[in-house]
């Protein structure tokens, strides 16, 4: 069970009374997570995997403990399948580079219209370098990913499916199991952008049957600048590292090197130690509720968000018309008012929402809007936040339509 009122007491940033509705961008941080990171900086701020002295060993133990916490969070089989990165963006760039190692000119990658720029631009860079082609799954009339188009869009040399689990601009949940089944049937590798799904629902990388899974700690109560890349163990030997440096080597000579075993092989340099420890604390905090409870709470609150917004005739939610596969996020426009003006007036009413293209310009183009206002939910939000949103939106509309 989620008791949002007791969770709110554990979030210092909520003390100022803001209705925080921008968690899809980044979530607020519980005191527990802040304390875990402070403990590292205050008590054992040593490097990991290096010193033989006590402080360093304590740091290493805390760092590796976080790896196990995160491993269980996504239900990976082995801790070494969890690679710590600086966040989803780096994870997706690394996954793309790793997959590109075995791709040749004329090969292609299948993406969707719902991708965040961080799952588009890395592939464009690879396309320029290697001459691989980018294919896109279209959107159905109902506004969701068109699974039926899969077989029509792919080509004999389509090697990779790289897809978001939940779209950050619309909240639409991808039909992942159907997509993965199709990709498997064609022998494609699968990369999943879980930046929005990992905070909201139980993730089981084994059941999802994916090769790579990326997410960011800061969207699930953890700190910024840290995330994970799950890499299926069977791929570890065939993939070359994409970042070289300290910690990831076995032996270095002047002209060549050999690699350490994973996860070190894929984690060059001094990592974000405090961040990783905070990430561990965040998933352990979420684990104390259970991700099924988190999912149920946000699903229920999302329904309230959609019905409330739809009760205002001048608000139009973008994305799926049924909201059946929409989760935690509402992207909307108000008649006659620019999204930035909506967000600025909401800010004056002490509500935090996002306005812009949400790093999904191709989707904005498809929707035919330059930008939207986006409200997104997390476990500390309450129905009162949604009531405040409604009241503030009524105010925005009346300011702009006085005459």
């Amino acid at each position, binding site marked *: 069970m989620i008791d949002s009122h007791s969770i709110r007491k554990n979030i210092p940033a909520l003390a100022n009374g803001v209705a925080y509705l921008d968690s899809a961008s980044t979530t607020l941080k519980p005191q527990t997570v802040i304390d875990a990171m402070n403990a590292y900086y205050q008590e054992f701020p040593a490097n990991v995997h290096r010193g033989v002295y006590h402080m360093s060993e304590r740091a290493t133990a805390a760092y590796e403990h976080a790896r196990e916490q995160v491993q269980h969070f996504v239900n990976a089989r082995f801790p070494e399948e969890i690679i710590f990165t600086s966040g989803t963006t780096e994870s997706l760039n690394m996954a793309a580079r790793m997959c590109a190692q075995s791709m040749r000119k004329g090969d292609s990658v299948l993406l969707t219209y719902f991708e965040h720029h961080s799952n588009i631009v890395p592939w464009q860079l690879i396309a320029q370098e290697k001459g691989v082609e980018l294919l896109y799954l279209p959107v159905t009339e109902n506004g969701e990913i068109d699974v039926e188009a899969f077989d029509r869009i792919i080509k004999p040399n389509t090697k990779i499916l790289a897809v978001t689990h939940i779209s950050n601009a619309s909240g639409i949940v991808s039909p992942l199991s159907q997509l993965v089944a199709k990709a498997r049937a064609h022998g494609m590798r699968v990369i999943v952008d879980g930046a929005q799904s990992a905070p909201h629902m139980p993730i089981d990388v084994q059941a999802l049957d994916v090769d790579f899974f990326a997410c960011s700690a800061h969207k699930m109560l953890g700190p910024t600048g840290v995330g994970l890349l799950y890499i299926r163990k069977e791929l570890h030997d065939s993939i070359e590292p994409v970042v070289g440096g300290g910690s990831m080597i076995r032996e270095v000579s002047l002209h060549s090197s050999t690699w350490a075993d994973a996860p070190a092989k894929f984690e060059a340099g001094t990592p974000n130690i405090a961040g990783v420890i905070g990430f561990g604390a965040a998933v352990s905090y979420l684990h104390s509720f259970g991700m099924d409870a988190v999912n149920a709470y946000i699903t229920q609150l999302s329904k309230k968000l959609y019905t409330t917004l739809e009760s205002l005739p001048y608000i139009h939610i973008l994305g799926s018309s049924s909201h059946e596969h929409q989760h935690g996020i509402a992207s909307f426009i108000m008649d006659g*008012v620019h999204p930035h*003006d909506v967000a*600025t007036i909401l800010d004056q009413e002490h509500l935090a929402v996002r306005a*812009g*293209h949400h790093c999904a310009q191709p989707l904005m183009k498809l929707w035919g809007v*330059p930008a939207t206002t986006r409200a997104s939910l997390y476990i500390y939000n309450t129905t009162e936040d949604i009531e405040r949103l409604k009241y503030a939106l009524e105010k925005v509309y009346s300011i*702009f339509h006085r005459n």
Partner: protein
Amino acid sequence: MYQEEILEHYRHPHHHGKLEHATKIQAEHNPLCGDKLTFYLEIKNNVVVDVSFEGEGCAISQAAASMLTDEIIGKPITEIQQLQKEHVLNMLGIELGPTRLKCALLSLQGITRALNS
């Protein structure tokens, strides 16, 4: 921030539309909000004799464009080139955070660039 004057300019922007006899055309884009504004200037003997702008945007960027086009008509280029951001902010009469500042200054940027091109 949304005073009546700004809203009035937003609802009924002055000099909105295309200019047939433009001698300079400049497009400006604010990637943050997706706003795209195009400025048309007709210049004769180093004086801006007519100006207009086209495109959608937020209330701040539309009001700034509307007020600034009012302001520069009939002025010599050299005078317009002296205009600073403080001038636009005074004209709008509001305080803006760093993000919204870009909306307010989009038209000054467009007009200055058109004159310098």
